[in-house]
């Protein structure tokens, strides 16, 4: 298990922002803490959220007694991003200098990959099941 609590501040901020983006609704600090696996102290999460709010990276709204946070997006910027992003997509992603997390899959790749993932899930032993924390998976396509 990764010890998220001992990471540099920048990495913690990144993790919190990623959690906010992954959620479809605004999150309160306890919800953010939960979505990070509960490894961070609630006060730490609250501090990070306050810092991100001060920087204008996130916006917040009242949700009961607490604030609920959501990433700040300007509509114009979003449009520009989509345009710039499509520009990037036009390039041949096998030859660019940007190291992409995953390259495109051919139909064959996709078949092999689904098989591999299914096998990995099937052969999972109870002892190695750190993945059981995945109950909040946003991917409904693969019933477990």
């Amino acid at each position, binding site marked *: 298990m990764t010890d998220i609590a001992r990471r540099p501040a920048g*990495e913690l901020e990144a993790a919190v922002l990623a959690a906010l983006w992954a959620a479809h609704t605004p999150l309160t600090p306890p919800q953010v803490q939960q979505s990070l696996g509960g490894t961070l102290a609630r006060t730490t999460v609250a501090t990070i959220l306050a810092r991100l709010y001060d920087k204008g990276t996130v916006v917040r709204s009242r949700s009961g007694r607490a604030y609920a946070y959501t990433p700040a997006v300007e509509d114009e910027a979003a449009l520009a991003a*989509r345009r*710039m992003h499509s520009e*990037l997509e036009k390039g041949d992603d096998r030859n660019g200098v940007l190291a992409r*997390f995953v*390259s*495109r899959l051919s139909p064959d790749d996709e078949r092999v990959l689904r098989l*591999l993932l299914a096998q990995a899930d099937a052969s999972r032993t109870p002892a190695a099941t750190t*993945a059981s924390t995945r109950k909040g998976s946003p991917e409904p396509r693969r019933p477990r």
Partner: protein
Amino acid sequence: MTWAVWAPLLAPLLAVPAARRLADVLAPRTAALLLAATAAMLALLSTGSLALLTAAGLLRLPVIAALGHMSAPLMRRSNPIYLPIGALAALALAVAAYAVCRAARRHRTDLLRAASTAERHGGAGDLTVLPDPGADAYALPGRPGRVVVTAGMLRKLDAREREVLLAHERAHLRGRHHLLIICADLAACLHPALSGLRAPLSFHLERWADESAAAAVGDRRLTARAVGRAALAASDAPAAQRPAAALAASAGPVPRRVAALLETAPRSRFNALRPAAAIAAVLVACVVASGVSTLEAADDLHANIELAQGAPLDHPHHHSHSFPSLPSFPE
């Protein structure tokens, strides 16, 4: 000079397949460094050969010979490189130089464009999130480097898978992997046969980052799943955004990465494969032969020039060579 000058131009034909085979049995980090170093060395040596051929060919021109205070007839007699070969070599050098400039400019444009995209958007720490529904993620090198991920990608992964993604991109940034990619790309501009090293280098860099991420999160299976699910998510992106040319039929890199992560532990299989030592020997031989040949050819050309300049033949170093390389001494 006759054979020595050609060896570095031909060596990549043998060295590239050898390096690829060897990389497949090495640990990812070693493999990536081997491929990049092979590309860089062979590119420099073959370019050196082209330069020598160009120089030797041009020295047959009386004008050039006169400029260097050489006797043109002597130069013609001792120099085995004919003018047309020199001209071809000069042309190849010019084409290579043009290709290098173009590739360097393309890399620069790509990076600047990606950087300006990232700058428009809010980030936290080293992460920039693009509010784009398609799934994509990459490492944007710079000082400091940034991890750029789309909202679409973050929404397809759970918290621990997102940690894998961030750890993977951070490994690219920390290892400055883009420098190795640029190195291999420019090498391919200098000698076309070296372009065969580019795809394996990318693959082993991804494997290197995968293993770093697996070590960071402490779970190889989780890492495999994150890579696999991210790739499937990226393939679900709207068809309009998918470059059709990138769809190859053969087994692509992602399933191989996932399969490698699902193996028990990262290890070098070098010892398990007997021919690996032989392949390594071939590769080392290619690089060493290229290096020695280039030096030899340069030495020969130097001797020719001195000879044609009427310098005394006190070149003991040169006399001692027994290579059948130089029919260059006038009787």
